[in-house]
């Protein structure tokens, strides 16, 4: 049989590691993509002294690459300190899995975000977060680095898909260098709206296509 995934991905998909939930977790993150409908929940137990992740579990309502990435990322995070675990990226997970199809970046990046949001949840509960940051163009651009360009599997900033961003009175405007009827236009738009919508001081998001 011919599958679009590496043996490693298939192995994690067939027998995912760290599946399930943790009762009374120290931190938990639930990330969902409006664009594709996938969801990942990540639960962590953290040693209060050393800040080491002692237990980690995930649940997935997603496709094969979503499940496989969550499986490998929870393996990677186990036994690491929160600060170390924050550095786990989608790219690292993808390398660990022997590569993922670019179009799948989108669903698999959710697992990384789930881990980060579980860590953030822990930090918020334990008073480890600093003041809320005001959204600037720079913040917008860093958020957009988490939106994938399905054509390449790299983010839309790095692939120069974003021509212009601006923010004024809580309204963000993003100009995307794609025609509005492009195959991926609506998926990218939903993704951008979702990523920027989570910023506390953003009221509206206008995604504009060039043609």
């Amino acid at each position, binding site marked *: 049989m011919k599958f679009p995934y590496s043996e490693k991905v298939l192995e994690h998909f067939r027998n995912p590691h760290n*599946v399930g939930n943790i009762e009374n977790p120290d931190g938990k993150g639930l990330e969902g993509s409006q664009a594709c409908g996938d969801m990942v929940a990540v639960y962590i137990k953290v040693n209060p002294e050393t800040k080491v992740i002692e237990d980690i579990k995930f649940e997935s309502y997603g496709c094969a690459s979503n499940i496989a990435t969550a499986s490998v990322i929870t393996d990677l995070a186990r036994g690491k300190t929160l600060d170390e675990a924050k550095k786990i990226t989608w790219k690292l997970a993808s390398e660990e899995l022997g590569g993922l199809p670019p179009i799948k970046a989108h669903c698999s990046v959710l697992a990384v975000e789930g881990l980060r949001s579980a860590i953030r949840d822990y930090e918020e509960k334990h008073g480890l977060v600093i003041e809320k940051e005001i959204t600037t163009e720079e913040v917008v651009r860093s958020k957009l680095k988490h939106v994938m360009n399905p054509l390449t599997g790299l983010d839309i900033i790095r692939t120069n898909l974003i021509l212009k961003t601006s923010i004024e009175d809580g309204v963000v405007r993003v100009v995307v260098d794609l025609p509005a009827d492009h195959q991926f236009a609506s998926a990218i738009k939903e993704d951008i709206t979702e990523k920027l919508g989570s910023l506390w001081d953003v009221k509206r998001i206008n995604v504009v296509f060039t043609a």
Partner: protein
Amino acid sequence: MDERVLEAMTPYFFDTYAVATSEFGYSIGIESKEGLERARESIISKLEASSGEVIFTSGDTESSNTVLKGIAWALKEKKGKHIIVSKIEDFSVLNTAKALQKQGFDVTFLDVDAEGFVDIEGLRKAITKETVLVSIQHGNQEIGTVQDLKVISEICEEKDVFLHTDATHSFTRLPLSVKELPIDLITMSAHTIHGPKGIGALFIRKDTQINKFMDGGFQEFNLRAGVENIPGAIGFGKAVELVNEEEIRHLKAMRDRVIDKSLSEIPDVTLNGNRNKRLPQNANLTFHYVEGESIILHMDMKGFAVSTGSACFSRSLESSHVIRGIGGDHERAHGSVRFTFGRYNHMGDADAAIDAMSEIVARLREISPLGRK
């Protein structure tokens, strides 16, 4: 593909390999032409059409493009620039309509109800003096819903508007007679009935005003330029002849088994489409709390080929427009699975598929954050 189809086609690759010629041509070309006409006759008689009313194309996409563009271009000055299509048409109709929209045509995308039936009153109201074409499919490619073409064709006849129906998934499997129904254009394809890929057909009722879509030679009654795909046409003709009533009953029985078993043996399952007014070969169900691409991959590993409306599976990363068209949300599309049956399936396959589904869905639900009771 059916082996008998290949057998019928083979001589037209080798012995009778010539391009079809007019009756004044060389004999091998005349033989090719005769084969082509016999194949055409199979389709004509199935539809109860008249000679000269069926042309061969490269498939359903070309047939639908020919209709939408051909009628729009032919009538834009004479009558108007308005076209009506349903929201759940195949992309070959939907995206052609959108392309015409860009060229300045006015397109109405008709709503469908929760089972996929087009809004009949909505259709009646949508037709104006400017309307040149209504395009509503026969059986839906994903959820199998079969439209009431009798009522739809009567409305179009009464309002004097051309009606096209995309019968790619229903042709030969459901009765469709142009003697009984005033349908003006019908799209068909061989690949859905164990015929070869790359060959389709289009019924065009006499006196329908339509422009040529591709320019070139005068083949196919000057409606479709280009050298005819004769082996393909022969294969299509043979495939049409091979469909029989007993086979259709068998398809329906397998379809019903999958639907009934899924609904009774697996919890949290919703049927997509109507229970009875659906294509004989099609079952489509949503297995809640799990994702379709994961299901497909697990099914593939067990030797079953099924399909899904999940965004994760689609080439555009968008969930099925059909499931969204019937009012379903992302979630409904996410876990939707389509089972399609063919001539070579047995009842045992339907049972085995659902046993496999039952196990896969249970496993995936174990790892899903949703649906915990």
